[in-house]
């Protein structure tokens, strides 16, 4: 790790240091309790029965065969759901959103959609029952191709329904422009957004290098290792519903259950245990269904997805079709961008059409641009979010076009990016101005990186069958915004405990503790942050959208300042000093310049809590709302070796440069850069939903849905650029999402550099590489 461009800033003691993650030992030693570990007395186990058809009418569900299995207690179908809804309604009847389609009602709209749930006294019984359940279908025409689905005469993937709930999509990014919902005549295009600037015809007329291409990218799984899981405990006597679920946002789960079941939040408690990975996929996927099952069964119910369930019935990240034409002057000045991105949203809305169109067109200073984003419904499993949803699909296109134009003009591709990169105050394609950003600084660091500087030598090391190449690409993410609140308590031993409602992803509780320790002038081990639940913690947004530390970190800083101020007020009275003359050091409140005039944190705790104590308890509170985004940019460099006989790609070296604003915990931040880079490699080279001709997923397991293994990934050289954000704590930016956005494109450019051909579909599998090189006849594997 190298830290570049670190500006002058105050001397910090705890933040900015490589703190070991507080939740790490439990995870490493296997003692962490995850949702699947929760066991309750009288608990039933649930197994979903999934549709094998992409589009079909449910003719009949015959429960008797399942109920005949010993230990099976009930078969729940969509018709039963109204038993669980307070007002007796049934959300699954013609739902507009995936969230309401708990179980398919009369019609299945994707292969993998749950059509029934079998409850059993044991998981084995439930599985046996699910295997025995008889479901009769009448297949309907399925819409499986994005382009075909967009045509006006295409059959509809699904009956048109009412208003669309976009709360999950907006959890990730805050953008001002929202897509228009489709008009009166029903089509499969469920939303469409456009941005334009200048005059596109003029732009191309003035361009000297023009490149036009169509790029495709596959549907992906988020790749969280802990599968979807929920345990719901319903107490009929009190009406209490307590839900343990693997989630990035407990309050989002609570609100979703509240809306779906019409359940009062005074009778609802959502507990998010330690999270085994989310990446945008842990957002109320299973908790409403399992809550309903518990209410119906009047017993605790546990549902843990199998890996197959998770791939078939999860909410994967969208595949996309991008048509793009770009123009440039021979000196490297970008002139025109004309593009469309169509996301395969699957059977329900949820694709990031607005985000994709905006980000595709906002990272360079295009004088003329026209972009369209489409959300297209098909009979594939409906999509959800992923780390930076929709961005890798469009960066694949933009960054390959830039690369190809630079090559044609004989220019350094990094130089072209640098010349045209957006700066602070530049407009996005929506017209909104960029706040303080560090794209230029990021590209500069990448340009001077040895991996980029030595690219000619790398290429020269090629042999006749092993071709080497180096590729560069940028990416970025605007960052989400959401209010946050935190509380801090002074303990009897002079330490500080804190509670937030934010789930710890990627070590955020450790970074929170660093912030509090910094402000309280305590060593890190004297601060502990706990994730409370929806009954015990103040509000927290989702741990998503690269905003967890960006927003909650500020709330904790404010809470620490509040706690400190309360301590000053009590201490001022005891020390007969002015509160403004006090400081904290060494676990004491002291009079500045007179260290002997002090009162310890322990003493302050005692006189604010003891029997007959004179002073109020010390409770620091921080509540914030963030209004200015802190976009984060990345530039990534990949070196590959392509076996031109087999198409096999070996990633030899990899560098990731990112503007992180300020790294509260550089070790965690590097982990984010590395993790995002590895996911980028998966996107670029291996990961893909492979469907057959009838829309069935053929690789519903981690053997054939290929995520990178440790053996596939080289050391990743991370460089942290620190251009402070305006509104983040200590200048920090959200760091989680930018890191995934550039990898696919960087690898694609490296492969093109190596073999002299472009692979039009991501991932660049060995077969597609051979085909791009003209070494294979015949057509691609089915569904590929």
């Amino acid at each position, binding site marked *: 790790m190298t830290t570049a461009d670190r500006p002058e800033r105050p001397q910090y003691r705890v933040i900015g240091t490589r703190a070991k993650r507080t939740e790490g030992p439990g995870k490493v030693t296997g003692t962490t309790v995850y949702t699947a570990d929760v066991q309750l007395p009288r608990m039933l186990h649930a197994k979903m029965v999934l549709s094998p058809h992409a589009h079909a009418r449910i003719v009949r569900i015959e429960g008797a065969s399942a109920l005949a299995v010993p230990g099976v207690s009930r078969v729940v179908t969509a018709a039963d759901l109204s038993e669980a809804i307070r007002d007796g309604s049934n959300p699954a009847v013609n739902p507009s959103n995936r969230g309401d389609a708990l179980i398919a009602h009369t019609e299945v709209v994707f292969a993998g959609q749950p059509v029934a749930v079998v409850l059993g006294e044991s998981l084995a019984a439930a599985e046996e029952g699910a295997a025995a359940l008889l479901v009769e279908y009448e297949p309907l025409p399925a819409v499986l191709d994005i382009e075909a689905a967009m045509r006006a005469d295409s059959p509809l993937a699904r009956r048109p329904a009412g208003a669309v709930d976009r709360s999950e999509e907006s959890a990730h990014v805050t953008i001002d422009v929202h897509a228009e919902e489709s008009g009166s005549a029903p089509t499969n295009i469920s939303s469409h957004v456009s941005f334009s600037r200048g005059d596109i015809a003029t732009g191309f007329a003035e361009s000297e290098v023009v490149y036009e291409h169509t790029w495709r990218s596959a549907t992906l799984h988020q790749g969280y290792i802990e599968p979807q899981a929920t345990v719901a405990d319903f107490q009929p006597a009190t009406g209490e519903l307590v839900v343990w679920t693997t989630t990035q946002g407990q309050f989002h789960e609570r609100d979703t259950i509240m809306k779906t079941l019409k359940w009062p939040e005074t009778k609802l408690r959502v507990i998010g245990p330690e999270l085994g990975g989310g990446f945008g996929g842990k957002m109320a996927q299973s908790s409403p269904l399992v809550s309903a099952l518990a209410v119906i069964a009047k017993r605790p119910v546990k549902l843990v997805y199998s890996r197959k369930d998770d791939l078939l019935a999860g909410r994967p990240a969208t595949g996309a079709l991008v048509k793009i034409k770009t123009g440039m002057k021979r000196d490297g000045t970008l002139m025109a961008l004309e593009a469309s991105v169509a996301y395969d949203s699957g059977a329900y809305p949820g694709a990031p059409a607005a985000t994709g169109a905006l980000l595709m067109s906002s990272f360079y200073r295009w004088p003329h641009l026209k972009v369209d984003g489409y959300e297209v419904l098909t009979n594939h499993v409906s999509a959800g979010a992923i780390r930076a949803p929709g961005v890798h699909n469009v960066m694949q296109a933009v960054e390959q076009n830039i690369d190809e134009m630079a090559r044609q003009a004989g220019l350094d591709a990094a130089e072209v990016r640098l010349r045209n990169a957006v700066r602070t105050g530049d407009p996005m394609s929506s017209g909104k101005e960029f706040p303080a950003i560090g794209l230029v600084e990021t590209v500069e660091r990448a340009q001077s990186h040895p991996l980029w500087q030595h690219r000619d030598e790398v290429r020269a090391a090629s042999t006749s069958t092993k071709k080497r190449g180096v590729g560069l690409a940028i990416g970025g993410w605007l960052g989400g915004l959401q209010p946050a609140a935190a509380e801090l308590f002074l303990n009897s031993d002079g330490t500080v405990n804190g509670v937030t409602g934010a789930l710890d992803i990627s070590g955020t509780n450790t970074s929170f503790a660093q912030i509090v320790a910094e402000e309280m002038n305590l060593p890190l081990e004297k601060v502990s942050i706990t994730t409370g639940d929806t009954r015990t913690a103040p509000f927290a947004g989702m741990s998503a959208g690269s905003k967890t530390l960006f927003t909650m970190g500020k709330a904790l800083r404010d809470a620490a300042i509040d706690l400190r101020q309360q301590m000053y007020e009590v201490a001022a009275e005891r020390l007969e000093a002015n509160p403004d003359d006090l400081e904290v050091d060494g676990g004491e409140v002291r009079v500045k310049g007179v260290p002997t005039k002090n009162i310890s944190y322990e003493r302050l705790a005692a006189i604010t809590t003891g029997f007959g104590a004179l002073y109020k308890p010390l409770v620091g509170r921080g509540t914030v709302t963030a209004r200015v985004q802190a976009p984060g940019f990345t530039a990534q460099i990949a070196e590959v070796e392509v076996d031109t006989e087999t198409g096999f790609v070996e990633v030899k070296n990899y560098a990731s440069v990112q503007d992180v604003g300020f790294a509260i915990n550089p070790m965690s931040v590097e982990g984010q850069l590395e993790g995002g880079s590895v996911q980028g490699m998966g996107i670029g080279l291996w990961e893909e939903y492979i469907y057959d001709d009838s829309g069935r997923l*053929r690789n519903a397991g981690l053997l054939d849905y*290929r995520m990178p293994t440790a*053996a*596939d990934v080289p050391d990743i050289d991370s460089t942290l650029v620190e251009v402070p954000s305006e509104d983040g704590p200590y200048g920090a930016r959200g760091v989680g999402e930018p890191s995934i956005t550039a990898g696919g494109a960087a690898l694609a450019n490296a492969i093109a550099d190596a073999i002299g051909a472009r692979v039009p579909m991501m991932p660049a*599998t*060995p077969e597609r590489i*051979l085909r791009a090189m003209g*070494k294979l006849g015949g057509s691609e*594997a089915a569904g590929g």
Partner: protein
Amino acid sequence: MQALKYARAASVDDAIRLLRDGGEAARVLAGGTDLIVQARERRREVHLLVDIKRLAETMVLAYHAPTPPDAPPGFYIYPGLEVGAAVPLYRVYGDPDVQRHYRALVEASHVIGGTAIQGRATLGGNLANASPAADSIPAMMALGGVARVVGAGGTREIPVAEFCTGPGRSALQPTEFIVSLYFPPPASRSGSAWERFIPRNEMDIAVVNAAAYLAFEGDTVSEARLALGAVAPTPLALPDVAAALVGRPLDDAAIDRASAAASAAARPISDMRGTEAQRRRLVGVLVGRVLRKAAARARGEEVPA
């Protein structure tokens, strides 16, 4: 999940009796790395598992060199490698004699599953499972492997090259199971090699795999065996392609001819792991690579896996 009964065989005869009494749904359990998964996913109906891991005959791992010319009169030991059907892979590829004489077997068994799987999985199980894409079977074919099989009808030997009859189907009759695998000793100037193609470096099922054994007299190929995996309903021995290599030097032209012939002999299908065209191409590439590698080893060169 099916409810299963489990019995540990006390002897080979006991195992045969248990299998006979258990009928169709009684299965032999060695490492269980395929069988347990298949039973759990209901891909195989299994009611009784007969564990053969505690038998001396199934746990043997022994190599005997050919009887030296200067051996005392009457001295004779049956030469070659005997691998019990329940010997876990880590012992096979970790054995110094296997490493010295049967490199293709080392290469193939080293990539089946991860370390934990290799502590359980066996060559006998990999063969009995009869997957068209099995990693070890082409290596065993190239090394001239023979399965020693027992059953209610007695004992017999089945060449590995004739063992598989279809996807998941084998020449084993009811009550029969593999006790051990036998491999003849390699010729003095010989070498073997195995390769597979997968899109990643680990954790995958072969798109294509290939194995070769070559022996030389002078510059001339005196013996050759070639086999492929994942390109036909069974692992595929290529006796004709191999025979064409014998009696002449292994030059580039001979290798190219063998690659082309192997590519033509393959009968691949298109599935999610690869198309027919890709597989045919890979057969040609891999056959060339294993022939070159086996030849280099025969020359005494150290060629890494």
